[in-house]
């Protein structure tokens, strides 16, 4: 076995660095899902009647739907009745400052390398920390309030800004959109709500750390971001999860609304527990992410997907207004027994709309990585432009890389380009680098990082660092 091959094997066998579990006293609903559970969740959260009805409508739709099987994923059957749909930390008094946060939780964030107590000073980032399903603490509210930006947990938004929530909830991802979105709509626990008023440039990057902490508790986050005319926001989402033995279901919905000339930049670093080397215990990540861009608006998705046993995720942009812009930048890594079926949809409706897609897939170990994307140009979308580039890197003999793009064009003014390539890190490339005095480790790191550069460049500074760190952890041994 060559040096390179051995190193690849070593690095793909690296264990999950963030595999620890914190004992929080949680209030957990009995496993199972029926109308009563939906009512219970709504009641626990003290929701208005319209929201309960919305949930029930979604639940009814979900019951009539079938689990999709078109993805290139080998999924163990999910018993939706074996999952508990509600968990919350015990009721605690409302907190005024960081010091009041449960030391256990703060400790957990420290392990993840997110010194919450230093965030304010060092990074100028507001953090809405979610532990299980209820927001524990939200920072930087004052600074944001000054700018008129609303950034709070979804539950708070329902209580404090019901009109805004009611107007936009489900407007981009309807309850019947797909199986997992319907499930989420019925039982969503909490999430983030963000509202940027007209003409406001959000003074800081908004960030949320998601964390699954309670065994057998599916997490059903709901995120809604509304950017009014001429506003701008950059939103960061990142997650790491403790090691678990049972599969955990994660079905989130993210909706973005970018009004005229608004810009939303949504970045994700995803590092859910991928399961052990046999694929046991990893997170099932079924996410529906979609944005609607009005005239001259821009929505940009950037994702670094290194975790989860199964990733099923297609962040999309509906380019509804004229001259709207959609972007998708993705790095997806699947090693061990990880399976990722991910990509994007760009739906061109308005005139002169443009979209670009850069997707980098890395397969190692027994990982299976699929890019699945749709570029659709409707009749009305005159002069639509799309550029798509999908590259795959194969590290090892037992992994797979698949590219399944759909291009559907109904307007002759469209210019669509799609390019894809699949290759491996050649012995000759490594040899060349070694010739120049680099260690095998540095060479591999350079090649993999170079492969992902176009995407990392799109990430905000602090996330780019984290993304590289995650890639290094996932490819431990020679890279990084």
């Amino acid at each position: 076995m060559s040096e390179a091959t051995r190193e690849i094997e070593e690095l793909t066998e690296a264990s999950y660095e963030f595999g620890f579990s914190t004992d929080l006293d949680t209030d957990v609903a009995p496993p199972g899902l029926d109308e009563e559970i939906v009512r219970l969740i709504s009641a626990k959260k003290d929701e208005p009647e319209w929201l309960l009805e919305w949930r029930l409508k979604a639940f009814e739709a979900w019951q009539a739907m079938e689990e999709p099987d078109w993805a290139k994923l080998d999924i163990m059957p999910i018993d939706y009745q074996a999952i508990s749909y509600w968990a919350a930390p015990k009721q605690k008094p409302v907190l005024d400052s960081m010091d009041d946060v449960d030391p256990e939780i703060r400790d957990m964030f420290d392990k993840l390398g997110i010194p919450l107590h230093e965030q304010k000073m060092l990074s100028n980032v507001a953090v809405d920390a979610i532990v299980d399903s209820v927001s524990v603490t939200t920072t930087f509210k004052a600074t944001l309030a000054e700018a008129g930006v609303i950034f709070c947990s979804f539950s708070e938004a329902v209580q404090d800004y019901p009109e805004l929530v009611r107007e936009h909830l489900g407007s981009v991802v309807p309850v019947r959109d797909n199986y997992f979105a319907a499930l989420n709509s019925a039982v969503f626990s909490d999430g983030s709500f963000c509202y940027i008023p007209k003409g406001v440039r959000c003074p800081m990057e908004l960030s949320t750390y998601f964390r699954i902490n309670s065994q057998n508790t599916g997490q059903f986050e709901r995120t809604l971001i509304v950017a009014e005319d001429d506003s701008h926001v950059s939103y960061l989402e990142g997650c790491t999860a403790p090691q678990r033995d049972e599969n955990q279901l994660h079905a989130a919905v993210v909706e973005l609304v970018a009004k005229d000339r608004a810009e939303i930049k949504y970045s994700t670093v995803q590092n859910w527990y991928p399961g052990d080397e046999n694929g046991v215990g990893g997170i099932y990540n079924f996410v529906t992410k979609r944005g609607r861009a009005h005239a001259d608006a821009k929505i940009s998705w950037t994702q670094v997907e290194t975790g989860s046993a199964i990733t099923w995720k297609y962040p999309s942009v509906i380019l509804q207004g004229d001259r709207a812009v959609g972007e998708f930048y993705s790095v997806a890594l699947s090693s061990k027994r990880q399976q990722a079926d991910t990509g994007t949809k760009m739906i061109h409706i308005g005139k002169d709309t443009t979209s670009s897609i850069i997707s980098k897939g890395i397969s190692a170990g027994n990982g299976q990585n699929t890019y699945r994307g749709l570029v659709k140009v409707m009749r009305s979308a005159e002069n639509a432009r799309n550029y798509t580039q999908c590259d795959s890197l194969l590290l090892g003999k037992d992994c797979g890389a698949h590219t399944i793009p759909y291009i559907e064009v109904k307007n002759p003014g469209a210019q669509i380009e799609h390019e894809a390539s699949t290759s491996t890190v050649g012995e000759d490339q490594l040899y060349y680098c070694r010739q120049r005095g680099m260690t095998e480790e540095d060479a591999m790191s350079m090649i993999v990082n170079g492969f992902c550069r176009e995407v990392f460049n799109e990430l905000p500074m602090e996330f780019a660092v984290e993304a590289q760190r995650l890639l290094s952890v996932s490819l431990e041994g020679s890279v990084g």
Partner: protein
Amino acid sequence: MTIHPDPSSEARLGALDRIGEIGYPTKRDEAWRHAPHRALGELTFGPPVAPGIGVPAELDNQIPVLEGPRVVVVNGSVDASLSNLAGLDGLRLSSLAEVLAERPEQVAAHFEQGDSGIADVFVALNVAYGADGAVVQVADGVVLDVPIHIVDVGLPAAAQNATCTGVLIDIGVGSSATVIETRVGAGSEFGGSNIRTTIALADDSTLEHVLLQDVPSVQVHLSRVDVTQRAGSVFKARSFNLGAAYGRIAYNVQLAGTGAHADLSGLFFGFGDQTLDQQVNVVHAAAGCTSRQTYRGVLDEESTGVFNGGIDVRPGADGTDAVQSNDNLLLSDRAAINTQPRLEILADEVACKHGATVGQLDETALYYLRSRGIAADEARRLLINGFADQAVDDVGIETVRAWIIHRLGHDHA
């Protein structure tokens, strides 16, 4: 499901039992997403009817004239009077019905569907009813200079509007040959043709296979070509998907021997409300194989083009080099293109690339030509032909190339 290797009529008709099980394709079947499902359901199949009805004179200009070996199939039965089955040295040309009757074991592979089973309901129907057609057998070490022409004519009748034809091509070790398949029809009635070609290329053999599809624009045409390539063999496919309301040409190429090379190219040129569907799947099952897929589509008026091309690299197929491209020109604001270039890769040490583009005629190029005194229509035609020519130029036989150019020009004048 495996069809019994004995291709007797009972065994073949056994395929019909499978139809209920397989069911007609729906919009949810990836390979049939853009097919006219209602029209497919209206096709009626059965054993060949009224053999020897001849070819209407109106078709004379629609079939390229090639001297030499020729098989003419009318409504699923070989018309001996129009065919020229006299063999050449090293070539045995027969009707499928004759081979089925006299030496059935030689065509068992065509009817046996192997472990993967029957791909779809139309394969099952073809297995059941496609009992006649052409069998091309080229012995080892033979280089044939003269192209073999297989003509299929569909003349739908009200009682049974669809026909099935089978074509087998076996090329011996180290041999090379050229086969032209022309698919035409006549009449203004709705109907369809379902033609299945099975090609086996032995070690180091070469086949150039040209497929001309130009059936009337009221008909449905379904072509399926299954190819198995042994070590060092070369398969050159050139398809021209021009006729039919729904014209479908599907290739399934298995690169089963080391160092085999498949080079597929095609042109689809749609008018009216035609839907022209190309389904291509190249399976790299052995090491060191190369494949190329180069498809070009021109869609005018309300036509729709479909390209669903796959490169499937199996474990162990190291050293694979595969390239795929699909470029399309949309000429009308009601035309549409659906393109899906797929890569599925389960081996490392591979180099695979694919690309797809959709565009329109270059306004500056049009302007340039017009400023040189060329009329608008002529300038447009020049540019379209320039785009299409790449596929045409690659056809080795002058007569066939001239026929294609005439056919394209004819519709475009």
